[in-house]
């Protein structure tokens, strides 16, 4: 045994020079941060660090912008629509998308050409002929059908409109459906419905997941075993037949809003299990962390430990898990409605719109009815990328 004292050289400790005033030399400056950037990092909160890491994730940033655009559409759907989505007219059935011309005689002047409908005498199919001689100029911020923005602010201003003729007879940016309803306007309202039903469902699952997962992880024992078995049973249920059964159980006489609510609850009652497992896992890991023991030893109450120490440590994970849960909800709403089990007309959602493109006839004659699939794909991808980005930013080592 050599002298350990050799390794343990005494140094000028703070206590040896305690007294009036603290000179610079009293402190150990192992790695004194000097630059402004380093100083900024030193005092950055966990949230700020997460944002700085997220910012570097380019795909996630682009997706975040896409999502912001989507939710602007949700807020301003009636403003972006130019025709009442319920307005049908057999004379305008299945019109193809109409090209919009931006320049006329070298000047910027958006316009469309008038379209005349006729019936093919041999096939009885309605055919639409563009009349390049009748120019209909497009106008912005024009008066149209009245609506209430966010359900409260009354308005009748719309982004697009035409001059001279009623807008529903002249403008068909994405064509019309079988009943002659304007697809663009319906798509705006469908976006509003599909992107909010997901949020409502996720909020309910989030609440259930955090609550039950938290109870399961924090108290463990019998309660834990019970909740875990319930989760296993719920997860082993085949979802499509269950949805079919539950959807069939909803009275057909219910108004659209109530069906919407019921579907939301059905989806979320099955959707909380994943999150509950994540939360339980985090609780179990955190319970063993030294800083939790330290808080207990300091005399913190159980509530303080949970809400001051544990919840903030996995909040970022919950945000990421939620962001990844929303697209799943959107997909389930869309597929349920597509199968005719979820939302039904007169409600408008992406699934309801796609339901019209179910048969081969529709696809052959009017392929534009498949257009609502594009926002579904875009939204789901964007949510997934943002979720991935958030997860990486929240836990760069995980």
């Amino acid at each position, binding site marked *: *045994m*050599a002298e*350990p*004292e050799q*390794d*343990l*050289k*005494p*140094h000028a*400790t*703070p*206590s*040896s020079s*305690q007294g009036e005033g*603290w000179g610079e030399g*009293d*402190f*150990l400056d*192992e*790695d004194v*941060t000097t630059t402004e950037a380093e100083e900024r*990092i*030193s*005092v*950055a*909160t*966990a949230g700020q*660090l997460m944002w700085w890491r997220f910012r570097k994730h380019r795909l996630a940033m682009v997706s975040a912008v896409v999502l912001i655009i989507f939710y602007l559409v949700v807020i301003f759907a009636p403003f972006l629509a130019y025709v009442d989505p319920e307005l049908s007219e057999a004379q305008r059935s299945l019109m193809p998308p109409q090209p919009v011309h931006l320049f006329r005689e070298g000047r910027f002047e958006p316009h469309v050409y008038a379209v005349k409908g006729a019936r093919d005498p041999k096939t009885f199919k309605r055919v639409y002929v563009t009349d390049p001689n009748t120019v209909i100029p497009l106008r912005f911020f024009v008066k149209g059908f009245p609506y209430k923005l966010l359900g409260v602010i009354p308005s009748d201003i719309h982004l697009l409109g035409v001059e001279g003729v009623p807008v529903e007879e002249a403008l068909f940016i994405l064509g019309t459906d079988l009943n002659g309803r304007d697809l663009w306007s319906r798509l705006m309202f469908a976006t509003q419905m599909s992107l909010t039903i997901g949020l409502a469902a996720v909020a309910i699952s989030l609440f259930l997941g955090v609550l039950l997962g938290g109870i399961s992880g924090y108290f463990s024992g019998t309660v834990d*075993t019970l909740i875990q078995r319930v989760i296993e049973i719920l997860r082993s249920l085949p979802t499509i037949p269950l949805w079919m059964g539950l959807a069939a159980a909803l009275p057909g006489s219910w108004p659209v809003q109530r069906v919407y609510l019921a579907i939301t609850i059905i989806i979320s009652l099955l959707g909380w299990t994943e999150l509950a497992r994540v939360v339980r896992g985090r609780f179990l890991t955190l319970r063993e*962390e*030294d*800083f939790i*023991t*330290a*808080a*207990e*030893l*300091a*005399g*913190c*109450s159980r509530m*303080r430990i949970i809400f001051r*120490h544990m919840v*903030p*440590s996995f909040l970022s994970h919950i945000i990421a898990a939620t962001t990844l849960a929303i697209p799943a909800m959107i997909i389930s709403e869309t597929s349920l409605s597509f199968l005719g089990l979820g939302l039904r007309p007169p409600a408008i959602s992406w699934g309801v719109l796609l339901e019209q493109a179910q048969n081969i006839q529709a696809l052959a004659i009017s392929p534009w009815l498949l257009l609502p699939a594009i926002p579904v794909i875009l939204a789901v991808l964007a949510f997934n990328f943002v979720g991935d980005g958030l997860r990486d930013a929240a836990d760069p080592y995980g």
Partner: protein
Amino acid sequence: MKATQDQLLLEVKNLRKFFPIRRGFLQRIVGQVRAVDDVSFFIRPGETFSLVGESGCGKTTTSRCILRAVRPTSGQILFRTGDGRVVDVAALSADELKPLRREMQMIFQDPFSSLNPRMTLLDIVGEPLLVNGMTDRAARTERVAELLKLVGLRPEYMRRFPHAFSGGQRQRIGIARALALHPRLVVADEPVSALDVSVQAQILNLMLDLQSELGLTYLFVAHDLSVVKHISERVAVMYVGRLVEMAPTQDLFYTPKHPYTEALLSAVPKPDPRLRSKRIVLQGSVADPANPPSGCYFHPRCRYAADICSRATPTLVELEPGHFVACHRAAELKLTGVV
């Protein structure tokens, strides 16, 4: 234990902590891990008492039982509070425990997991003050600044988050937090084993300075004998949940009485290459605390084992004044200590 009752700060009597092993769907208890099995020792005020042993020998569990971070299965933990009463920490309810928390604090092994990454130093060091009634923010800030100075950190750092600090600095923060409530007993659970050797020395020196300055008593849990020799007055050696030897530091290091202690001492790194060949390499592996061997737990690996060792469990006896050992052959063996 013969030490006079009224001199002791802490006396642990027959402490046991068993962890149940649960199996199957119904989580039935099929066995027990005897993490701490009949451990008794005492600590005098102002001294540094070290608990050493291999990983998994129960030294950390013992220290956490004393702080009641875990609830012991049985046994007594008698602690003398600041106002002179002797309370049995093991028997207290959660409410009764709260005032006692101020008097016993802990320094953790891992400086990275022991500080909440989402709180500033002010919140971390100030939390014990806050939950114990110092609600005035200005007073708390002042006290935190004082504590940070005490452990050699700049008070200006208090707005920073732990991620801005190195391992040694973080350990200083942990020490400041432990000292916030003026504890009388500080349990240090391997406080330097996660640090570089140079930083270890700084932290140990800081702990020694604080001890003399504030009159602290340390229960120092460690596996590094060279560290233990440097700082402690008395040392206890644990093996598979039991104490095998307890003695003043000099006695334990120069005249060990237990073969396990001898083996541990021979494993301490020596700078002199000529001395290295004498290392005793133990055969086999550490006994399983869920299924320990009969008699003396150490007998399958002991090179002095006799017949009796596999049959009877040795008790801890005081062979020389202050020198306790649990070995059937302790009196007859001539063991080598530190040379």
